[in-house]
């Protein structure tokens, strides 16, 4: 076990360590630094202490598992309504790099009623082996049978690394799988890297609404190393339909009466939201002023084939359903182009869209914080500007 030691004799009470702690675990007590249980032993304070009063003792955990038994990189191939989610392909692309770096195979794993089409696609996008569990109980998606199928495969074939898309499905059952296996799971990663010698997976993810980044490792006593990875972080790999792959089938060791939930129905939304997959998003905020005025946003989105987003202010005012909300208490998106219209750009909104490739801000307030992060800003009345943008696009695109 690790301990953070603060030498009371050496500590001068200079407080240099306090702002260095990303987790707010340090405070001053009677002129001496003290640490509380928010400490994650990241060591940030050790480096800043000018008098070296802070040290960390990290006991090496005794390795009790045979880490050598764990091989290969696995990617969960997620599908919905007959279509593989693009994040699964993106992960096959990234998984290829990881597998090459440590000299192992890249594998996909697929669950469903009938998986034939998905197997082909997984192989075309780079999987050398595909593990498949088919059963009528695996459609539609439910936590219990999916977790059971995954745990069954992982226990039997022992992958080194397992990657899931950080989607509604992936984030629902990956936690169950990791807890059942008693291994680590790093959520919503935006960067992956691997040490070819130790095979440690370096998982980088945002925290505190994207204000800090943390790189996370798994202790060697816990395998596989598992992460959920945010969609649209990695590029799509090239598709090659001439590739061949091995298919390994395992049955589902579960019956319907062991499954504790039933899907009664699916209510399709009045309007497709599709924020997660969108390459272009047009979002409206407080400046839109009413539900009716969202028409200007929808019209521009229509011309561009874009999804419609909204700020919390617009959702809370009841102008547009919550499903459209982008930001800390809504969704995190990463499109190629994000239009922020009448959105001031609070830190919470930024948490949901700051990593978009291009941000276009349209706002009448030149001091709005959105202009500080916008690639391009236009100051002025959005009801004049957006229709002009729409007409100009229509002209150029011949629509």
């Amino acid at each position, binding site marked *: *076990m690790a301990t953070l030691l603060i030498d009371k004799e050496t500590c001068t009470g200079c407080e240099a360590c306090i*702002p260095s702690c*990303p987790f*707010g675990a340090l405070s001053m007590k009677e002129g001496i630094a003290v*640490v509380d*249980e*928010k400490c*994650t*032993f*990241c060591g*940030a304070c050790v480096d800043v202490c000018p008098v070296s009063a802070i040290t960390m003792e990290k006991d090496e955990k005794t390795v009790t598992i045979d880490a050598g038994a764990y091989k290969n990189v696995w990617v969960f191939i997620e599908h*919905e309504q007959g279509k593989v989610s693009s994040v699964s392909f993106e992960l096959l692309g990234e998984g290829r790099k990881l597998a090459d770096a440590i000299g192992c195979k890249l594998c996909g794993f697929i669950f469903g009623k009938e998986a034939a089409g998905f197997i082909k696609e997984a192989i075309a996008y780079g999987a050398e082996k595909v593990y498949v569990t088919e059963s009528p109980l695996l459609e539609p998606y439910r936590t219990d049978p999916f977790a059971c199928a995954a745990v069954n495969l992982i226990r039997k074939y022992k992958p080194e690394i397992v990657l899931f898309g950080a989607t509604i499905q992936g984030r629902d*059952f990956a*936690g*169950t799988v*990791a*807890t*059942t296996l*008693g291994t680590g*799971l790093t*959520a919503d990663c935006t960067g992956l890297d691997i040490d070819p010698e130790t095979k440690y997976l370096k998982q980088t993810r945002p*925290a*505190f*609404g994207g*204000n800090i*980044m*943390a*790189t996370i*490792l798994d*202790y060697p006593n816990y395998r596989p190393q598992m992460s959920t990875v945010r969609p649209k972080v990695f590029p799509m790999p090239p598709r090659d339909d001439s590739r061949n792959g091995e298919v390994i089938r395992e049955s589902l060791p579960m019956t319907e009466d062991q499954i*504790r*939930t039933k*899907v*009664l*129905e*699916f*209510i399709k*939304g009045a309007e497709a*939201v*599709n*924020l*997660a997959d969108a390459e272009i998003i047009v979002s409206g905020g407080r400046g839109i002023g009413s539900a009716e005025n969202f028409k200007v946003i929808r019209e521009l989105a229509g011309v561009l084939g874009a999804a419609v987003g909204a700020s919390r202010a617009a959702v809370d005012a009841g102008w547009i*359903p*919550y499903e459209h909300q982008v930001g*800390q208490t809504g969704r995190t998106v990463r499109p190629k*182009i994000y239009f922020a219209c009448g959105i001031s750009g609070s*830190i*919470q909104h930024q948490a949901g869209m*700051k990593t978009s490739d291009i941000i276009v801000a349209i706002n009448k307030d*030149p001091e709005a914080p959105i*202009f*500080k*992060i916008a690639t*391009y*800003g*236009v100051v002025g009345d959005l009801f004049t500007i957006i229709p002009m*943008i729409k007409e*100009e696009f229509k002209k*150029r*695109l011949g629509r």
Partner: protein
Amino acid sequence: MKIVVCIKQVPDTTDVKINPETNTLVREGVASITNPFDEFAIEEGLRAREKYGGEVHVITMGPPQAIEVLKNALAVGCDKVYLVSDPAFAGADTLATAYAVSKTIEHIGGADLIFCGKQAIDGDTAQVGPGVATRLGIPQLTYVCKVREINLEQKKVVVERMMENGREVVESSLPALITVVKDINEPRLPSLLGIKKAAKAQIPTLSAKDINADENRIGLKGSPTWVTKVFTPEARGGGEVLKGELTDVVPLLINKLMDLKFIK
């Protein structure tokens, strides 16, 4: 019905600023709040109690000052609250946290229904809820935007889950763990009487030993993952404000966007 709500104290990220010189998070003066999603979990717990009877018990794990979020829970009308606090929990990742929370729920006698926020806004992992459900051996219902019906006799609950393009209606056996999204309700404000009562309340603190936790499964020792590096993301450049007459600015903007060769 016994309802347990799991909540977390988080820094209010509205206040979070980056020190431009050291590139680190400025923590001083940052207020601590109840994780926003957990406010909806508390409200949903209270509504279930009002409709079906029972008690709402709230637990939080954290340093002693996390007691504040429990006082807020008492002020809005929750029946009992527990602080789970022990230096031995330091360094806990989501697996070790879920273990400690599940041991706490067992210690206070279990639950018919557990509510959590879908995720906490500081860590954003969304993993502790499912972890607790798995540890307790009960089903989980995540991203819930509506609780349609609770049937205590048949031990069933029907909820709507918010999906990418619609809502999934799911029936589950009880006990179950539900994680909620923001859209589910409008949290109530505390009453004056509630605030007064909460201020005077003695809040029980449970240690690792109290909840009968295995010391090898809590804190850093029970955590498969550890944070090796923390850094500030590169500041986003930008801030090119296009100036001039709109009749010039708009075509200029479109030129720039079309140059990306992306819009088709």
